[in-house]
């Protein structure tokens, strides 16, 4: 795989997370571990067809990976690397040097 631009990686993560069905699929994989499309359809209010479509998109984005196995028994597993790239983006937005420097200014004047 060629080196990827962090912006492109983060964008795919945010696009994936913008959809409530995909968020609930990712949340289910994060909290309960790898699962088949059938497992997910049984535990979420989403049809199996819709789950298959979302899992395809999430695989494409590198957010989940299909474990080797026969069709219909394939388990999907969450991949954390792209999410950690998106987290770097969020960390930059959350840094808030403005508040820290205001506090420094107040400290110097006290």
């Amino acid at each position, binding site marked *: *795989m060629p*080196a*990827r*631009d*962090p*912006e492109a*990686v*983060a*964008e795919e993560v945010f696009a994936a997370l913008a959809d409530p069905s995909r968020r609930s699929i990712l949340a289910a994989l994060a909290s309960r571990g790898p699962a088949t499309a059938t497992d997910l359809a049984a535990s979420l209010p989403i049809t199996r067809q819709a789950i298959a479509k979302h899992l395809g998109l999430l695989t494409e984005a*590198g957010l989940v*990976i299909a*474990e080797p196995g026969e069709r219909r028994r394939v388990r999907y*597993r969450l*991949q*954390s*690397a*792209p999410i*950690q*790239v998106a*987290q*770097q*983006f*969020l*960390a*930059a*937005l*959350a*840094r808030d*040097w*403005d508040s*820290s*420097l205001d*506090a*420094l*200014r*107040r*400290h*110097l*004047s006290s």
Partner: protein
Amino acid sequence: MGFPDRIERSISVAHPPAKVWEAITTAEGLGTWFGHKATVDLRVGGLAQLTFEGGHSADLRIERLEPPHVFGYTWGISGLPADDPRRTYVEFTLEPVAEGTRLTVVESGFAQLPDDLYAGAFGGNVEGWQSELGELVEYLDARA
């Protein structure tokens, strides 16, 4: 859009560089305006630890120390594991000006890529976890 790799701010304060230097490099200063508490081993390669309100903390590794002009350190990126090799670099530059000090802070490195993004299909983690869990099973079996 654009991945924000670098954050830069400048402020002017009506105090001489020596006073600003003390505020940004001593445990007393850092533990007052930046964190809630601080320990500082002030030398290149030395560590400083900041504890914030609420209990979370940050470990700073001092990289540049040119009193009273340049203070640089690296620290972890919020949300990533503490031992993650990705760290941002923060550099404070103090410049004497007529009214006191011009202080500039630059934090860079938010957009660096983790090595495993190059490893192909993000597959490294799967094997990593499977082999770690395999090792755990072997370890437990050996003790049984």
